[in-house]
């Protein structure tokens, strides 16, 4: 599929800050699609923007030889300009794909094989929304329409026929899941996050999505706490308030860079006594640990550290190895089928030309022969016309059949990576999250 290009970044290639810098709201997406359409006449485009990925699917106009097919670097520059970013800062985080790789990537993304939480189903809705967004703006056509429609169909097939969507796989989701086994709801609970490390913020995001009654981000650098707290609609607090916050907290997520434990057994015992049997859930994902391990021995305290959570993640991933294999097999088969269909469709104009040419020759030769028989009746002439047409059709039947079969076979033309912009990374492997 010449002219089919994908540029983008995701959670495996870009940190949260880079992904956030490129996140586009619907108005910006609409403007971007419009702008692309004007810049590359007859092109098609779909912009997929989620919290974990920003991807631009682009198909150049293959019918217009004058229309330039953009280089992947040009598309990356275009994305950077949308948010007034320096494109050079994006290059190391971007990946670029063309042809068959785009199809395979889209199919894997749609069914959650490329997601941070393997097999998550939210991405299917996001792909559908992105496609419909472009469709409503007439930004898709004969190239991206079948691609996305097939992608959505494959994703449904994977979800229906494999257990890929079952289970849990990220540290954040495991932590939230365990909290759900302690508390029925977080809507009336206080969640305190200590430290603003990457992992801590990921877990905090997981808890923020549960809309707790009160969310507090406690950090040594108060300004940093304020900045991050704003993102999660949380309150900010200095680290000196930790002890008083711990007394009112139901969940504490600790990920500071402290060399010494911040929460000791001596500190926690009176706090737990004050809670009069009410459970408290502690997540310590700091290295070295922020919470003394002996705190976990106090009654009604449920303490989980990074190892505990990662064991669940690992167990969950290994249990789903078969599901991933089955899903990948469905995707691979769907990609082959899509390309066979696409190549067969490409043979159409060629076969049409062949028939037209052969019938024209037959008519020409028939006309020349009929000049030797001036007394022939119109009815006899019609019979001879029909005879010539049938002969041509029968002669062409086997060659056309062979041509169609040959066309459905893979060839070398559809399997090329686009030249990288500046060492963009491949994202063809399934993403994993810690």
């Amino acid at each position, binding site marked *: 599929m010449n002219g089919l290009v994908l540029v983008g970044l995701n959670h495996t290639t870009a940190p949260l800050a880079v992904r956030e810098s490129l996140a586009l709201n619907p108005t910006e997406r609409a403007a971007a699609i419009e702008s692309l359409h004007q810049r590359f006449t007859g092109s098609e485009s779909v912009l997929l923007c989620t919290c974990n990925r920003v991807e631009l699917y682009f198909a150049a106009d293959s019918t217009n030889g004058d229309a330039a097919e953009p280089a992947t670097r040009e598309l990356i520059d275009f994305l950077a300009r949308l948010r007034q970013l320096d494109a050079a800062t994006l290059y190391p985080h971007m990946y670029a794909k063309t042809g068959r790789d785009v199809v395979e990537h889209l199919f894997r993304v749609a069914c959650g094989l490329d997601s941070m939480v393997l097999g998550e189903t939210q991405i299917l809705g996001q792909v559908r929304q992105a496609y419909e967004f472009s469709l409503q703006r007439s930004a898709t056509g004969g190239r991206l329409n079948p691609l996305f429609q097939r992608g959505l169909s494959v994703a449904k097939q994977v979800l229906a026929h494999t257990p890929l969507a079952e289970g849990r796989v990220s540290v954040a989701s495991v932590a939230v899941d*365990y909290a*759900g*086994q*302690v*508390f*029925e*709801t977080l809507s009336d609970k206080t969640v305190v996050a200590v430290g603003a490390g990457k992992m801590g913020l990921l877990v905090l995001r997981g808890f923020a999505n549960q809309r707790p009654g009160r969310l507090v981000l406690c950090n040594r650098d108060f300004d940093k706490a304020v900045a991050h707290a704003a993102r999660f609609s949380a309150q900010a607090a200095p680290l000196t308030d930790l002890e008083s916050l711990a007394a009112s907290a139901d969940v504490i997520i600790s990920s500071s860079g402290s060399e010494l434990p911040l929460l000791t057994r001596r500190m926690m015992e009176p706090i737990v006594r004050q809670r*009069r*049997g*009410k*459970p408290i859930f502690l997540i310590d994902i700091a290295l070295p640990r922020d919470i003394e391990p002996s705190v*976990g021995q106090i*009654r*009604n305290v*449920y303490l*989980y550290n990074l190892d*505990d959570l990662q*064991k*669940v993640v690992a*167990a969950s991933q290994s*249990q789903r190895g078969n599901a991933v294999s089955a899903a990948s097999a469905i995707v691979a088969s769907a990609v082959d089928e899509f390309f066979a269909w696409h190549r067969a469709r490409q043979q159409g104009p060629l076969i049409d030309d062949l028939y037209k040419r052969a019938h024209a020759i037959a008519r020409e030769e028939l006309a020349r022969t009929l000049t030797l028989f001036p007394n022939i009746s119109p009815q006899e002439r019609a019979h001879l016309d029909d005879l010539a047409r049938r002969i041509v059709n029968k002669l062409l039947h086997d060659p056309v059949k062979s041509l169609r079969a040959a066309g459905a076979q893979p060839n070398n033309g559809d399997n090329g990576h686009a030249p990288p912009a500046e060492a963009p990374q491949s994202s063809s492997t399934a993403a994993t999250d810690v």
Partner: protein
Amino acid sequence: MTDALFIAVASFAVPSSSQLALLALVVALFLASALTSISRSRHDRPSLRVSAKACGWSGIAAGVVLLIWHASQRDSYVPLDDNFEAFIWLSLLLAALVLYVQRTQPVAGLDWFAMPIAILLLAAAAYFGSTRPTVYLDTLWSKTHIASAFGGSVAFLVAGATGAVYLIASRRLRTKSLDTGQRVGSLERLEAIIRTWVVLGFALLSVALVTGLVIVLKEGGQTRLGRHWYVNPQVVLTAIVWMLYAAMLHTPLGPGLRGRRAAIVSLIGLLLMVFTLVAVQMMPP
């Protein structure tokens, strides 16, 4: 306290062998339900869930048929007149309530503990129904007493079963178990269920104690408990259970009925209640 107040035997029907066979079927169905449900703690499958529920409700249906059959044999359409029926009633109420709670709340595992107790009560019905058939007083006081005592007992049994599930869930969390078995529900919800049923059981048991007191005072030494009713093991044990929960719910110690403590107290209450219901039957009056 359920059968604490009796008068001399008027008329009763010793269960026939056919009725005992039907009782055995109920036991088998409850046992199958419990075992199927317990197997879900290892590997949860929809087919097991459906099987456990089907066995449980089938057992209850068979038990209701048995109650009606036994009551009609005595030409009484109030199937609550003797020990045989009383124990079956308690058992069916317990099983039905547990299945109902599991259906309406996102919790599971209560039947792991409740079904064995229901089976124990059925066994008590088979044994004490034949050997010590008794007839209850047929007055408004006694009916109120029986209904509240039954309700209170079953409520404490449900709370106790939930307490046991709470301890298992708590242990799973503390040991960071990776098992893929059935989720039993959040600790917070289990605790809420314990509190609800303990409060309900306490209220009903209070009514049972008051009505029981009225009856013995009114009847003097005419009840089976005799003149020294206040030292009867059933009365004493029931009073202990009542005082235990009164202390937990209404003293400055409260609100102490939380977390593991609530679960442990409800389990103690369950054991005392089972002892009150069954074990004292074997004691001399």
